[in-house]
């Protein structure tokens, strides 16, 4: 897959500020974080979740539980894809029963990943509440799903994509609008 960077939306500093704000919002809206746990969606959602956890730990001075969810097995397009996606391990090392689970991803677009994640999550237990936090909302939803915490609203057209880069996997931090030349996935 080839892509061309069209615009740099955020650099390392502003990405960090956005994550800081998200952390504050979560603590504020949950009125503390006693029964709050974070679950990041693989791949980049995990790292966004870990960074938000780091911020919350600084603000509230407690340890923040972070889980990781791989939603491949719950996707609604497995049946129609000829290319089979890679399945990775989900790791939620705590009970989610009666907790407020903050589901975290880097970008929300169609809403299908979040739908799959909701299905996956309820197989682990029955949370009191599930909320959604994303770094970027790019619009164009295909499902009735809305994020509770949004870093940046960034409506772009079909054909353009948002690329969130995280140091842990991409070697640098930043949010970019890119133009993608697609290879067919179907």
């Amino acid at each position, binding site marked *: 897959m080839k892509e061309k960077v069209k615009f740099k939306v955020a650099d390392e500093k502003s990405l960090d500020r956005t994550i800081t704000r998200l952390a504050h919002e979560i603590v504020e809206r949950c009125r503390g974080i006693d029964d709050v746990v974070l679950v990041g969606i693989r791949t980049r959602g995990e790292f966004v979740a870990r960074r938000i956890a780091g911020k919350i730990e600084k603000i509230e001075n407690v340890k923040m539980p972070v889980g990781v969810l*791989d939603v491949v*097995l*719950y996707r609604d397009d*497995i*049946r*129609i*894809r*000829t*290319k*089979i*996606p*890679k*399945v*990775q*391990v*989900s*790791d939620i090392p705590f009970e989610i029963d009666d907790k407020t689970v903050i589901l975290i991803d880097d970008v929300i677009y169609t809403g299908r990943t979040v739908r799959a994640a909701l*299905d*996956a999550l*309820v*197989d*682990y*237990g029955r949370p009191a509440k599930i909320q959604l936090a994303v770094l970027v909302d790019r619009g164009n939803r295909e499902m009735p799903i809305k994020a509770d915490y949004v870093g940046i609203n960034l409506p772009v057209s079909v054909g353009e994509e948002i690329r969130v880069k995280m140091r842990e996997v991409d070697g640098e931090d930043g949010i970019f609008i890119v133009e993608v030349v697609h290879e067919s996935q*179907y």
Partner: protein
Amino acid sequence: MNLSIKHLLGLEGVPKDDINTILDTAFSFREVLERPVKKVPTLQGKTVVNLFFEPSTRTRISFELAEKRLSADIVNFSASVSSLRKGESLKDTVQNILAMKVDTIVMRHSDPGAARLLTRFVDAVVINAGDGTHEHPTQALLDMMSMREKLGTLEKVNVAIVGDIKHSRVALSNIYGLTTMGANVVVCGPPTFIPFGIEKLGVKVMYDLDEVLQFADVVMVLRIQKERMGKGFFPSLREYRKQFGLTRERLEKVRRKLIIMHPGPMNRGVEIDSEVAESEHSIILHQVLNGVAVRMAVLFLLVGGKRG
């Protein structure tokens, strides 16, 4: 992450990348088996037929669980209660079942090559669950997964397969798989149980088990079929145990860490002692758990997705 193979008939000729993909995926599926709800919707709407022309307990249950955990619809068929009794051929039986629109056939059959034959006249994914004395690929995959889990790699690992190599589909599939993955394989057993020319598959033949235990990292003990006793293969169970049984006394002499495996069902007190099978070195029950995960991985990778 697609495999290069379309069916799983054996491990002969299956490339290293495919084996790695299956094992990696299987490790991810292991986590699913630990969840409160041990089921994912991945194969919803797919139909799998389990065709067992030979008796089987663990393989059959393991496949059935794997299919259920992936939400596939399943149909079970066993030879003893079917039209085969009325003289129907394998081809007719299978084509009739396929006319009912199934996607996958998991088959155990007593004839070597039965699974391959099936692929010629059916349009479904075929998974070999054991064909006579030929291959039993999912067993070898779960064995390799268990070894990799304990040792971190298969590269350069010394694996000894002990017992009836000649009649064992588990041994043959393991030899193909392990040599592909870069392991060193030694086979050990009475000369009557070592097929002529087996060295050509890249394995070493040894006849002294004590010597083998001096360097092996993994010892895979095979089941001795009592029916073969007195037919020129070995004289008595006692004699077999003395020379090739993994006994407590024999193991006590070994001052190294060993991993002990057995594909089951075991003849306790013949090829393996109870104390050995239940010792800290043994990963026999672990193999069973990995069996479900590996079969989920194979099903997912071959049956999931649109066939293109």
